[in-house]
Every structure is written in C-alpha cells, then in structure tokens.
C-alpha cells in the first residue's frame, strides 16, 4: 500500500484542523442531566425503523418517543462497536512503511474515534444502563496487504457514510433533546474530516490495487462490499430494541420492518452516497441484499 504517496499537504491540513478544534469528550457536554424526560425525541422520527410502516400507525406518541430513545442507544452502540474495529485497524497502520505524514493524521483520527465512543457510551450507560450487543464475527482469512488495506478503508467509508447521514440530519433537528442533538453534532463535526481522508485513501488504493485486478476479481470485491452494506444495515434493525419497546415477537417485527418497501427505500436513499463513491472507482454494489 502506498499510504505514503497520499498528498502530505492534505493530511497536514486535516491534522491542523484536528489540533485547532480538539474537543474533550469529558467536558464537551458539561451538564449531563441526571435523568432524561420520557416525552422527548432522541432520534428523528423519520429515521426510526418503524417510520412509514404499519407499526408506526399502531403505536402512540409515547411509544414512538420511547422507541426513539432505544434506537438512539442502538445507533450509539453500533457506532461504538464499529469504532472499536476501526480503532484496531487504524492502530495497526500507524508508522506503516514510513508513512509519517499520514501517521500524524492517523493519531488524530484514532483519538477522535475514541472520544466519540466516550460520548456514545456515556449516554447509553446513563440512560439505558447497557449497550446493545455486537454480534459480528470476524473469520480471518489470509489476504494480501493491498487487499486488506483496500477493504478496510472501503468498509470504513460505507459504515461512516451511513452513520454520518443520521448524524447530520439529527445535528440540526430542533425536536431532539439537546444532549442527543449535541452528540450527533459532535460526531458529524469530526466525521466529515475522517470521510474526506477516507475518500482520498480509497482513491489512492483504488489506483494502486483495484485498477490492476481482473474484472472477475473486481466483481467479487463488489459482491463482498454489497454484503457488508447489508450487514451494516441489519444492525439498525436489532430485535433487542423491539423487545425492549415491548413487542412480544421482536424477531418478526425486525423481519417485517426490514422487508417493508418504505424501509427498503430509506436504506437505498441513505446508501446512495457510498454506492456512488464506490461506483466512481469501478465497483458496482448490488442492491439485492438491501
């Protein structure tokens, strides 16, 4: 991998912004309320997994708001799980093959991901007393370094573009409880730099690696990333959330919501950005699993 061939002025600029705008997660939210009100929104209603489905009409305003808290905790939990994997991958690439300019930014990237997890975890533990579980399993297979680097940054892009859509939307949603709005605003603020860095890395890795692959191998990569995209989305429909919301058949609820046309359309809309970005480097993601 040619991480060292990335434009050093670009990473220096990102590092400078990180330094100038650094936020301490332990003081960023000064006054965590001891309790949060039940009659507030914690996730924008139109981003909830029941929105646009028959379930939405079946539940009253109080149940919708309760669901908005549970789905906020699920969103923060899946971000923590994703950030743990991301931090591991970033740490493994520090000082890799003399990539010093990039490493300077990777230190910021890594630190900022850890800070995000502090805020997400604080909210979940204070107001729900738990995180929702991570059920991902990694079955390691040996792969060449260039492939591992490419897949790492491609998966980061998919995961972060989806999360950032939610963050950006909720950072400006005045209906949300201020703590929820602040957490989303903070995440978007730093993720926009991470995404800019990731796009640049992916373009570089694509030129160095993907462009050299056969059409068949490119098709296999596209298929793998299509499955990753669907797996990422499945985490937004956790049966634990519907169980905590009081549904007697939470797995059936999760399956029905996943299959509902309104939710399919929502996933396709939110995924469009990362699908387009991967198309620009020659990888066409299939929507069949979405």
């Amino acid at each position, binding site marked *: 991998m040619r991480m060292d061939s990335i434009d050093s002025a670009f990473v220096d600029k990102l590092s400078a912004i990180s330094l100038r705008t650094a936020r301490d997660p332990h003081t960023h939210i000064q006054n965590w309320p001891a309790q949060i009100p039940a009659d507030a929104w914690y996730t924008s209603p139109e981003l909830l997994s029941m929105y646009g489905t028959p379930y939405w009409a079946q539940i009253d305003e109080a149940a919708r708001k309760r669901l908005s808290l549970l789905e906020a905790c699920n969103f923060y939990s899946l971000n923590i799980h994703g950030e743990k994997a991301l931090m591991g991958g970033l740490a493994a690439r520090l000082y890799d093959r003399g990539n010093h300019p990039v490493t300077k930014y990777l230190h910021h990237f890594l630190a900022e991901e850890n800070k995000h997890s502090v805020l997400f975890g604080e909210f979940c533990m204070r107001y729900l007393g738990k995180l929702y579980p991570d059920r991902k399993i990694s079955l390691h297979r040996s792969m060449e370094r260039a492939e591992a680097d490419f897949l790492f940054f491609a998966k980061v892009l998919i995961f972060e573009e989806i999360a950032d859509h939610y963050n950006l939307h909720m950072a400006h949603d005045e209906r949300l409880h201020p703590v929820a709005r602040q957490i989303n605003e903070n995440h978007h603020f730093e993720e926009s730099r991470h995404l800019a860095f990731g796009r640049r890395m992916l373009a570089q890795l694509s030129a160095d690696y993907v462009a050299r692959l056969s059409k068949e191998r490119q098709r296999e990569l596209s298929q793998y990333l299509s499955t990753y995209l669907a797996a990422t989305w499945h985490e937004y429909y956790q049966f634990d959330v519907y169980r905590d919301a009081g549904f007697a058949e939470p*797995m059936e609820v999760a399956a029905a919501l996943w299959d509902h046309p309104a939710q399919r359309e929502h996933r396709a809309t939110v995924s469009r950005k990362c699908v387009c970005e991967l198309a620009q480097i020659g990888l066409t993601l299939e929507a069949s699993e979405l």
Partner: protein
Amino acid sequence: MKSPEEIETSLRMWVQRKAPGLQTEVQPTTPLLASGIIKSLHLAELIMMLEMWRGEPIDVQSLIPGDFQDIETIMRRFFSTQPRESQ
C-alpha cells in the same frame, strides 16, 4: 417458542434467501460457509435469529467457524439438550 423442526425450517428458508441463485435445495448437511452460500458477514444476522429462537444470548467470543458448518451442526450446537462435546 418454536419447535426444533420449525427452527430448522426457518433456518433453511433463511439460508435459501441468502443464496437466491442456488440451483438445489439446501440440505441439513449442505456446507454453508465453505461453499460460500453464507458469508461471514451474514453471521451477525444469523446469531441474532439463533438468540431469539433460543431465548438467551450467545457469547460470540466462544464461537468458531465450525459451529456454522451446516444446518445440522447449527441445530446440534445451539439447540441440542445434550452437553456440547469439547473442542
């Protein structure tokens, strides 16, 4: 609570859904991961369903790829009342 037969049927339907291009019907001993019918990325969704059917959480740290070899193995591993053989 689903019966073991109902779980096995649901499991087979789920696997079949993950491999729409598959020409033959999935059998209890059809290799799943080794044949590529299901991929490691599908496992989180599968574990979520297994937990729901079992009615208790699964410690993902204790899992190995062999636990998902085929439907017969999955049924034995997660729904058998017999003690699990040591690995």
